[in-house]
């Protein structure tokens, strides 16, 4: 079964600059390939040129003064095996990763590919939204660091015709931050029907700032602005957890697709929002 009939040529650039030159010369007819899962499962018949990033040495997880740097070609398996990720946010990020997809696909899905495609069901995009990941875009001469919010506010697909995602930087949050991610699946290897990631900064039980991201809605992941504002300045308690669950259920933007209904996703959002706050309360004790 020839999946990508239109492909005329493939490239194996050695540098980011070379990659971007090829991209620019072919415009909309070229596509950069991360792990290559998306392009092989959802082939785009318009694409004629593929650019493989495998020779750019972009598979790494390393510590730096700016935060933890994750190369664009790093797979989910690489993240799971990284000691830095094992310890990051008290292990809360590490515990989510083995639940995503299957071992075979975790070996193929890359961080850069997930961000560059922003598929609606991506758990990686929700995770990085929740963690307020910074995306490093590069044309080989200049690196630009943008927040994940700004990246998706722009026409990111257009941006990626001029630059590539080089890496992601995760801030090393101090101990007064709490992170949790939830995803709902019908069976162990299913695509999430809904996912939610929350980052809270607390002083004792007081929430001083909050980020709430949700995905698989079935639209792509987004940052639920109102939810962060709702939590700011509130004190963690069981009552607040219930109140927050109701708030999220009422305000979250979810829809219906063939896999589940808007109502079901709203119910899930209520349960997860509440559960996350109860976990944060427990952690604050």
């Amino acid at each position, binding site marked *: 079964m*020839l999946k990508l009939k239109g492909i005329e040529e493939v490239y194996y650039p050695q540098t980011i600059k070379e990659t971007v030159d090829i991209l620019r010369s072919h415009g909309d007819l070229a596509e950069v390939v991360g792990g290559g899962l998306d392009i092989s499962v959802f082939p785009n018949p318009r694409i004629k040129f593929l650019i493989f990033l495998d020779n750019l040495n972009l598979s790494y997880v390393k510590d730096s003064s700016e935060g933890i740097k994750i190369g664009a070609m790093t797979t989910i398996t690489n993240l799971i095996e990284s000691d830095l990720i094992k310890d990051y946010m008290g292990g809360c990020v590490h515990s989510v990763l083995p639940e995503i997809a299957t*071992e075979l696909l975790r070996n193929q899905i890359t961080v850069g590919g997930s961000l560059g495609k922003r598929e609606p069901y991506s758990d990686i995009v929700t995770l990085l939204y929740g963690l307020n990941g910074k995306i490093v875009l590069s044309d080989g001469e200049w690196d630009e660091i943008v927040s994940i919010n700004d990246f998706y506010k722009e026409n990111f697909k257009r941006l990626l015709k001029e630059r590539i995602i080089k890496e992601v930087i995760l801030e090393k949050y101090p101990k007064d931050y709490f992170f949790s991610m939830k995803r709902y699946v019908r069976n162990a*290897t299913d695509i999430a029907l809904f996912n939610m990631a929350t980052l809270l900064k607390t002083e004792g039980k007081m929430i001083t700032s909050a980020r709430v991201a949700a995905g698989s809605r079935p639209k792509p992941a987004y940052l639920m602005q109102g939810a962060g504002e709702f939590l700011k300045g509130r004190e963690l308690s069981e009552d607040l957890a219930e109140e927050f669950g109701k708030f999220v259920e009422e305000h979250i933007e979810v829809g219906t697709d063939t896999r589940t209904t808007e109502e079901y996703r709203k119910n899930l959002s209520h349960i997860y929002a509440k559960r996350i706050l109860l976990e944060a309360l427990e952690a604050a004790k």
Partner: protein
Amino acid sequence: MKVKYIINGKEEEYEIHPGEVLLDVLRRNGHSEIKGNCYLGTCGACTVLIDGEPHTSCTILAAKVNGKHITTIKGIGDLNNPHPLQKAFVDVGAVQCGFCTPGTILSAYALLKKNPNPTDEDIKKALDGNLCRCTGYVQQVEAVKFAVKLLKEGKDE
């Protein structure tokens, strides 16, 4: 375009279309021991090891892995000299139609290379992308555990 792979230790050169997936290239060139089914990365029948790591060859572009080492089920043992995993799958009754078996054994093989003493949970996690329509999974987990025992004993009897 031309690609080269080291398949089961032997260098092979193939003429491919640049948009083909690895599964099609390998099967067309005689590697029918690799099965194909969903072409979506969901069943695991097409599993091969690429530089030792299990992948669904139906979602890997053949051109992307140009130059890599590829291992199919034939690369780890054969009828006369089966790998302990192959022997264990037969002995424990973890094979029925056999369609999923090459992929499942290769995923288990990669697991045991990384982790020679896996827990049941580790085994289930490693095989989570290899679906079986016949045998079910209890015997497969048992087979991997039996293979661990055989490997430790250093023999396949």
